[in-house]
């Protein structure tokens, strides 16, 4: 009996949280339209969320591509088809690893920064001060950060993919001796627009969900040091789990 009560309580709390987030999203989307009239606010946040994540994204992309080439070469060598390495690396990066790993890295770097920044603004009364100055924090603080994250994610994913392919080329062609022409021509002839579209759609969906969770958790953080810390943790956990869940659903949808 107590298990059933606890389960019902969990379900109700979860539904209430989803409903609360939906209302928050609707209010924020209304403000997003107004924010677009002041692009400088969004551009600043693209720099904060995207520009400042570039180094970690490029390094991760490089190593991912290198590992991918090593494993791919070992596997393809068994079947005597190492010339397909470029195609295999491109497909893995464009469709799967690029969007997913970029989203996970984004949640860990930019997502936590967004949550803690907004949470600290709440804790130090900066959001209340804005309200008292008749400025809606959803318009001035939250919506630009959400849009900055949403726009940054596909751009970061593209950078990740390009650097990843460079890493795969360095290991596959320069170190393992795969033919340079085969590497690029196989990729060019076998990767089609649908594969690229899948990656773009995934990165947009992940950008939407990771940015939404980050700003939501920050805006509703308890105004204490512990509260901001917990909100930051929730951002990473929820963003990561939802990214992987949505990745499965989107992959299934594109098959």
């Amino acid at each position, binding site marked *: 009996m107590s298990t059933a009560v606890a389960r019902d309580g969990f379900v109700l709390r979860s539904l209430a949280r989803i409903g609360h987030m939906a209302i928050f999203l609707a209010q924020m989307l209304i403000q997003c339209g107004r924010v677009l009239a002041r692009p400088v606010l969004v551009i600043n946040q693209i720099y904060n969320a995207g520009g400042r994540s570039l180094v970690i994204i490029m390094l991760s992309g490089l190593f991912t591509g290198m590992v991918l080439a090593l494993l791919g070469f070992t596997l393809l060598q068994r079947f005597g088809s190492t010339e397909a390495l470029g195609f295999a690396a491109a497909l893995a990066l464009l469709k799967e690893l690029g969007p997913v790993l970029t989203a996970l890295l984004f949640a860990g770097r930019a997502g936590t920064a967004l949550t803690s920044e907004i949470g*600290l*603004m709440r804790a*130090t*009364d*900066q959001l*209340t*001060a*804005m*309200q*008292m*100055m*008749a*400025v*809606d924090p959803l318009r*001035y603080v939250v919506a630009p950060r959400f849009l900055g994250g949403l726009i940054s994610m596909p751009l970061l994913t593209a950078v990740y993919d390009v650097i990843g392919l460079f890493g795969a080329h360095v290991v596959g062609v320069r170190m393992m001796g795969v033919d340079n022409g085969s590497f690029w021509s196989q990729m060019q002839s076998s990767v089609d627009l649908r594969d690229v579209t899948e990656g773009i759609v995934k990165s947009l969906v992940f950008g939407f969900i990771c940015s939404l969770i980050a700003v939501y958790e920050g805006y509703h953080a308890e105004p204490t040091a512990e509260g901001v810390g917990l909100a930051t943790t929730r951002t990473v956990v929820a963003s990561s789990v939802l990214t992987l869940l949505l990745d499965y659903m989107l992959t299934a949808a594109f098959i």
Partner: protein
Amino acid sequence: MAGQADPGQAAAVEAIVDVRDVHYSIAGRPIFSGLSLKAMRGEITAVMGPSGTGKTTLLRLMTAQIYADSGVVEVFGQNLGELSSRRTFELRKRMGMLFQNSALLSDMDVYENVAFPLREHTDLPEPLVRNLVLTKLNAVGLRGAAELMPAELSGGMARRVALARAIVMDPELLIYDEPFTGLDPIALGVILRLIQQLNQALGITTIVVSHDVHELASIAHRSYLMAAGQIVAQGTPADLAESTLPIVRQFMSGDPDGPAPFHYPAPDLRSELLSGDGP
């Protein structure tokens, strides 16, 4: 003394803030039980009381950050409970508020903090914005600190910048939450004089929430003393000073023994120490 209120004149002037029979509770714990007070146009109204009596909560009610469970809170003749969020924001453009912890925007320098309301609500040309910002900063003695970031300011300096920001839109109502806390005597004197000058020179209706009795008594026209969720005494600072009510006497003289307990409710110290129970 800043001229204590003439009761006859006070009755004729308009109440800018009118709080009537307000009840408010948090998680079932009553904070206000039938609280009423008024702040008259052009006056400095002091709201005093021991820590934890809900002074800041009262300010949040007056600025529509929270809403009363019952009762009426009117500001500029408008019932805050009936206003849409758009009209609430319009109303707030006529108010300025100085926060206890300054609440400066941490990603902007001092100049941009003070310019922020002007940039958001007006289309003034940049030279005019600059003149207004530097004038207000000069009034608080911090024109030379315009390029500093909030993290580089002392507590007293941050409070003065926050005051410059609060007055940059020339509000009709200015609300101060504990403006004297943590200030050195010089900064305290500056803030005290500024509150008085802003009230006298510009006629800004002023509400000051504080427990600094003597500072407030020197500038307030009307004082309210809060305790146990209600106004327990009101009048001019002189009225409060001469009051024979035990709670007023205790608060004005800073006596730990009296109707307002210094100790949070707890079992007897000796028995708790000997029993070994508790934390």
